[in-house]
């Protein structure tokens, strides 16, 4: 089963390999990982998408909590959250396909960020399933390159996850 975990960590040298090394060393799966500083610049927030049954997820959260540099682990399994991912897609574009690409871009509320006589580059933001769907529609036009950020998530409601909670 797919799980999304957010981790507040010390914004320090060498923290990322502690977290990623824990996953590889203990045989846990990482589907995606994104990381950047938070409002408090001494803290970074990682969003990890992983998979496993309840027992594995329990071990993952416990093992993460055991790392000295990990301040808080938030498991979004049982709480509502908003999930967004960004993708940038480079597509072959010729006379026949240019209009159709622009229609798809419009439908998905994506933006064209670069144009050449033979290609379009577009950015799209949304739930990972939306990005998957757009990619499938663009595939027949000739996909040249895709870059995805991996999802980031934010809990719903007024409560905010900070160090003090």
């Amino acid at each position, binding site marked *: 089963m797919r799980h999304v975990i957010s981790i507040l960590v010390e914004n320090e040298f060498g923290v990322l*390999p502690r977290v990623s090394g824990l996953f590889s060393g203990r045989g846990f799966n990482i589907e995606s990982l994104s990381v950047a500083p938070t409002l408090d610049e001494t803290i970074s927030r990682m969003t990890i998408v992983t998979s496993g049954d309840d027992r594995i997820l329990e*071990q993952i959260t416990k093992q993460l909590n055991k790392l*000295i540099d990990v301040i808080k682990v938030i498991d979004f399994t049982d709480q509502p959250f908003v999930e967004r991912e960004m993708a940038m897609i480079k597509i072959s574009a010729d006379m026949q396909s240019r209009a159709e690409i622009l229609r798809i871009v419009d439908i998905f509320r994506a933006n064209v960020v670069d144009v050449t006589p033979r290609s379009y580059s577009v950015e799209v933001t949304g739930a990972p399933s939306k990005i998957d769907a757009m990619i499938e529609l663009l595939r027949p036009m000739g996909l040249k390159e895709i870059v995805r950020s991996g999802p980031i998530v934010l809990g719903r409601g007024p409560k905010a996850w900070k160090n003090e909670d």
Partner: protein
Amino acid sequence: MKKTGSQILLECLQLEGVETIFGYPGGTVINLYDDLMDTPINHILTRHEQAAVHAADAYARATGKVGVAIATSGPGATNTVTGIATAYMDSTPMVIITGQVPTPLIGNDAFQEADMVGITRPITKHNYLVRDVKDLARIVKQAFHIASTGRPGPVLIDLPKDIQVASTTFFYPDTVELRGYKPTIIPNPRQLDKAAEMILAARKPVLYVGGGATLSDVDKELMILAEAIQAPVTTTLMGMSSFPSRHPLSLGMLGMHGTFYANMAVTNSDLLIALGARFDDRVTGKIATFAPNAKIIHVDVDPTSIKKNVRVDLPVVGVLPKVLPGLIERLQKDPETLERVVASSQAWRNQVQEWKEQHPMTYKNTKATIKPQYVIEKLCELTADDAIITTEVGQHQMWAAQFYDFSVPRTFLTSGGLGTMGFGLPAALGAQAAFPKRQVIDISGDGSFQMNSQELATLVQYRLPVKIVILNNNFLGMVRQWQQLFFDKRYSQTCMELPIDFIKLAQAYGAEGFRATKPEEVEKVLRQGLETPGPVIMEFKVAREENVLPMVPAGAGLNEMVLS
């Protein structure tokens, strides 16, 4: 007043109460070693960095203090890896200091450079690369705090040469601020209530005691609990010396080479009370048939140990010195109930006694060849109760666990988790350095001994009177045993064909050596060896194809023991 990095480090060690350290100098710690000469810290120069770490590890295991080892960068530092992994698996509080190439050279493949923070990340509780001399005092303070609290473990500080030379104003903080590190020390009182209820409801309880009990010195509390509820006690290899083997409630060790009665008791129990143990695969055998009818209470300071391998009915997170008194108090609150419960488990104790009589811990002694078990039994008779026993890894280690009676805590120092051959001799060195007056004995095999035999030099140089018992079967015995039982006696690369003259080896280093080849010589050689001052090797030419029994084959259930 300003101090250099190396002066600051040494000052911090003294403020942490460090008296003895183990190490090996080199290019990137030369400044540190220079300043070391001006301190009262006692430094022991081992002959290999791995041995320095094992010695510091055993020093910590024997004393309960934080062990400290130093090595230089590159090969010196990589030589510490096995020692650090050994300490990590057995949760020894340690601080390891490695030199590093100067900061501007890091990452350039400089001479004797190795990424130690990267290499030791999965085998340390935490590690540091010091990048500014101003951080050094805080880092050392944190390192000692992390190493010695919660579930203890090794912490590595990688210290570049230029940081040792740079100077700053020295200030040692009183407290540690680590927002990501707050181990749960005090157990949840409601969990203790539930634990007491479960104990009072049990009719076939077993106490399963691990290394956590040894590390937290709860032998007295453990005795009170065991006697209060009259539950049989089985220990892991690491928990061994926390409960006296000769006590009527003792079942000895459980697991792959555990006693018949310990494994039967665990398999048939209705309540397993795990105290500072982690359900290692060598303990559980096949998980599906492990304690199938038992409810499990798991007490551990490390939440990751709980529910990692087995299902747990009641987790209790906290340290044993806080858990056990709380539990005892609850159980003794109503003496009449407790008495009734104890009476109701009499049938269980009778059953356990029957198992003990059915298959006691034994071996077939002969007049023709020396049985290794016999040597251990005799050694046990001839040594003091507080003698410290270290071992290497293999058959001799299991025989030591099975046939030596431990009654004083922290007297059995062995590599349980990682199973490191070559641990015993440097460990004996470290324990003897901590307790110069006590008997310290390394029980060894001929294979393991040769993995760190160079430490004989250290023993002689520092007049550390360690006694070494080598059970010599000219085999890598444990692997040979597996080959005999599971590979149709195809002894691939397990015969140590070259007979080593261990007596001459001892003499070459300036130590003494005695040898026994017949059973009637065993006692004489042991007496002679133990009475001779200084380091001594006692070599016993033992039955070559003796097996460690009982044995639970890998993947089998605990009750599927091979008994003979």
